[in-house]
């Protein structure tokens, strides 16, 4: 069986999540697993499905800075996405991964660990949904399951600018902001901090696609967004740009 591979490059958050959802529909209809790699441009802030936008993001400040703020289909926390991140989505029928959700996170993260290992980075999986390198977070992942299909997406940090991140993210207690920012700086890292030279986006696509295909025992096959999928993405993008969706909670 084939693992359909697509690199959609850098796009807005609303496009990226609309694309994930359109491919989720596609996998539900066809049963064909899809692996997508992508990035965010322009910079965006996203919140987890169960978060309140007004509690997590200074969206007025974000709006003034033309930073798109979007609620994801998946749970987890608020994230600022810039061009120093590499993102993947694996969208696959449930039968390919462990039924147990906790085990499936680890199963889907394994090829990322394998790829990092090939780069000489000895990272480890940290339940429920993180990958750590020297006890610092290097990747966060989130999963949803709909209609017999698992969608897991995650971000691999290449470089981290915590100050920029917290310029738009709200914190539970403003009095503790400095302490929290200092704490996050200690707990988060990017892979470029640990490599001799900066890794290119395309090199990560090549490395990770091979690792995912090997891990799933599938053959890679190139995949493109056809007119039908593009129309669905355009339609779904309206949802991810709407206050009704983004300010639902």
């Amino acid at each position, binding site marked *: 069986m084939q693992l359909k591979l697509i690199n959609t490059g850098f796009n807005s958050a609303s496009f990226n999540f609309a694309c994930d959802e359109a491919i989720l529909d596609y996998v539900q209809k066809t049963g064909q697993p899809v692996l997508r790699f992508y990035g965010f441009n322009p910079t965006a802030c996203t919140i*987890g499905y*169960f*978060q309140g936008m007004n509690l997590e993001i200074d969206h007025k400040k974000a709006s003034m800075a033309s930073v798109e703020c979007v609620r994801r*289909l998946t*749970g*987890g926390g608020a994230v600022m996405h810039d061009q120093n991140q590499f993102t993947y989505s694996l969208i696959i029928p449930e039968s390919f991964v462990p039924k147990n959700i906790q085990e499936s996170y680890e199963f889907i993260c394994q090829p990322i660990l394998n790829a990092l290992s090939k780069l000489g980075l000895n990272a480890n999986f940290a339940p429920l949904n993180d990958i750590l390198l020297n006890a610092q977070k290097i990747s966060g992942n989130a999963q949803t399951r*709909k209609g017999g299909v698992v969608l897991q997406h995650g971000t691999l940090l290449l470089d981290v600018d915590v100050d920029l991140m917290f310029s738009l993210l709200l914190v539970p207690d403003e009095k503790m902001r400095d302490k929290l920012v200092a704490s996050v700086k200690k707990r988060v890292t990017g892979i470029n901090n640990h490599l001799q030279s900066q890794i290119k986006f395309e090199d990560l696509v090549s490395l990770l696609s091979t690792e995912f295909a090997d891990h799933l025992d599938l053959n890679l096959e190139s995949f493109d967004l056809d007119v039908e999928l593009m129309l669905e993405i355009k339609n779904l993008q309206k949802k991810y740009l709407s206050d009704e969706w983004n300010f639902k909670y």
Partner: protein
Amino acid sequence: MTFKNFKPTGGKLLRIEYKTNNKSVSEFKLRGDFFMHPESCLESIEDFVLNTILDSEFTNKMNQFLLENQIQIFGFTAENIYEILTTNQCS
């Protein structure tokens, strides 16, 4: 309305808005960076809390409700919800 941030040990940050009157809950909004499968069950959990007496059986009843509805939660427990609604704890 009372608003609390609560992070269970090893869990996710819960941000809860609620109003209680003796042993009943008249307002309850559950937000946070937790995971729930299926996601569409958030409202049914909020309704469950609104319609359940806050007594010693609350936790058992909520666990039963989650089991019956095949809801899986990562990041907090029924015990955490009971604790938030019945104590002044905020962590």
